[in-house]
């Protein structure tokens, strides 16, 4: 197992730049998520770590060794592909033994290891079957077995749950996570599903247009997004933005939106012009006495909670409130926010403004 360090990694395909100078570190034994919308460069980054693409510039260190220009076969990395890529002309046993055969391992040891891994993944009864007739979940397990059997320095998983049925996905996600907990192997996992990333990841890096937007533990990213992109990409519904023109100064602990004065964490940065107040739906409360007013336009019932959409002078706001509270469309009500949870963004740059609450997170990511 090994730590993976990525430094200023860049990849150009002709005139298109897929990855623009990424820097992050995957700790030894971490379950690390590469998250972002399609085309953001996350898969290219993964392929560069695996050695399937060579970077245009930058460094990739696996276990302290610079492997950036080394071919995949010399990196001691295992990978699970989105479509599994099981060799169709081999049965399950041959598929799993294939990476061991390439190392020239003696046959009896290969056989023992394959049986062992097959038992771990509960596919021992499938060993002599062809891979064509397997169900999605079993293919997934075979692909995992092929990756695990070699005990590589790290695992690369490229949207491994993407090809599975929705109902089975949940189950497989749990299985993957528990497998990781047992083995403690460094794992890099690519996904576009923010829920999956937060559920499973020890750490997340969020990419957009080839740029690393933020990097850190899921809760830091969720609570203290470094950019408006991260704020919107994480969470469902995403973070609300109340847009306003104003001035924020170092040391200030409140902003003025229209007539309402809203307490915010003490600011550490000056900014003026188009700003946005970011608030998660669960931190919006309906409070008739509050000065920020909103008119209810919709309410979605979700069982224990409901999502209420309100129109305010600063844009639409969604609030997650207990479903016990009766809300009718057309009602006008006041909105109050948890002061400790608020972030301010500079709309022009999309960056979060540093405050007493988020400065440690921002300094890190």
């Amino acid at each position, binding site marked *: 197992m090994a730590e993976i360090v990525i430094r200023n990694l860049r990849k150009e395909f002709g005139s298109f730049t897929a990855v623009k100078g990424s820097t992050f570190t995957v700790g030894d034994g971490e379950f690390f998520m590469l998250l972002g919308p399609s085309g953001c460069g996350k898969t290219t980054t993964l392929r560069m770590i695996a*050695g399937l693409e060579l970077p245009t510039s930058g460094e990739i260190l696996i276990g302290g060794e610079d492997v950036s220009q080394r071919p995949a076969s010399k990196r001691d990395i295992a990978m699970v592909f989105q479509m599994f890529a099981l060799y169709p002309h081999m049965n399950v046993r041959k598929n799993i033994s294939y*990476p061991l055969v390439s190392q020239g391992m003696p046959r009896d040891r290969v056989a023992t290891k394959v049986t062992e891994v097959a038992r771990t993944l509960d596919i021992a009864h499938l060993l002599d079957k062809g891979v064509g007739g397997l169900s999605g979940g079993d293919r997934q397990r075979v692909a995992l077995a092929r990756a695990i059997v070699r005990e590589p320095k790290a695992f690369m998983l490229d949207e491994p749950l993407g090809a599975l049925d929705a109902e089975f996905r949940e189950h497989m996600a749990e299985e993957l996570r528990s497998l990781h907990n047992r083995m403690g192997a460094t794992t890099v996992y690519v996904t576009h599903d923010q829920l999956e990333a937060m559920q499973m990841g020890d750490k997340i890096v969020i990419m957009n247009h080839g740029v690393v937007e933020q990097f850190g533990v899921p809760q830091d990213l969720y609570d203290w997004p470094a950019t408006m992109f991260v704020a919107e990409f994480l969470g469902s519904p995403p973070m609300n933005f109340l847009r306003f023109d104003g001035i924020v100064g170092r040391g200030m602990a409140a902003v003025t939106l229209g007539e309402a004065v809203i307490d915010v964490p003490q600011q550490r940065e000056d900014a003026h012009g188009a700003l946005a107040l970011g608030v998660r739906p669960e931190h919006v409360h309906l409070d008739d006495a509050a000065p920020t007013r909103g008119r209810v336009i919709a309410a979605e019932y979700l069982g224990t909670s409901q999502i209420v959409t309100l129109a305010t002078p600063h844009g639409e706001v969604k609030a997650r409130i207990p479903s016990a509270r009766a809300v009718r469309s057309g009602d006008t009500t006041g909105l109050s926010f948890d002061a400790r949870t608020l972030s301010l963004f500079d709309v022009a740059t999309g960056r979060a403004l540093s405050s007493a609450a988020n400065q440690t997170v921002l300094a890190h990511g």
Partner: protein
Amino acid sequence: MSAHSVTAASRKAKWVAGILVVLYAVLTLLPLLWIISTSFKSGPDSISYPPKVFFQPTLEGYVNLFTTQARASAEDLATLTPPEAWYDEIAWADGMIIVGPSRFGQRFLNSVIIGFGSTFLSIVLGTLSAYAFSRFRVPLRDDLLFFILSTRMMPPIVVAIPIFLMFRSLGLSDTHAGMILLYTAVNLSLAVWLLKGFIDEIPRDYEEAALIDGYTRFQAFVKVVLPQAATGIASTAIFCLIFAWNEYAFAVLLTSGNAQTAPPFIPTILSVGGGIDWPAVAAAATLFLLPVVVFTILLRKHLLRGITFGAVRR
């Protein structure tokens, strides 16, 4: 419209289709059947009118094809010891004595060497270049592919005279190597284009999985791509073999003895002696058909998969 009527053909349509297939099969197979049956007829049976459908089969045609014979008078035959081998008996019955093998066996062997040799070479070179065109960023790729295809835009025989002169000065005239080279050159463009299509269909994931599993690019190509491309390789091989096997014009022009193939040789049987020995000609044609038929049957499993390749696997 119900789903049933779209997916399942009606009984009537099945009947019509069945009858059409049988008619087509009769139309194409009847001449072949006639050739094969003629090859087992005796000389008089083969030219009798009305044509004989039922006859006493004999291997006379085959014996005549493979041997050189001399006519002997009844008195001469009486002085000789009676024949022991079955083929000697057949010749004896016609008043002939076998004096040695004919050149057919050697010409046939030439066809086998040149046909299969050039097919093998076309497939090896074709698969490697098709893989390169399919997977790597080859500079001017599209132009190169078009150039390769353009070599098929005129009939190859147009360049017969330049090739004849080149072969003469390179000492390739009437050599196996020369003919293999020529047929490979003609077939290669087809092979590259066909195989590129098949290799494009194979997801790159398989090779990448092999690269990750610790194999080199070439090992991944041999162990993962080639088995996946078996269908394409089989059908391309059949096309290449059929061309090389049946090629007549270049063979007439460039070979005369040592490397002469069967197609230019078979017509020479027609002009031997007085009458035309139709059973021998039919026997030659029958034997000439066999290798391609056998080769196709051996590869038919892959061919059938080739037909359903695009439809089922994705």
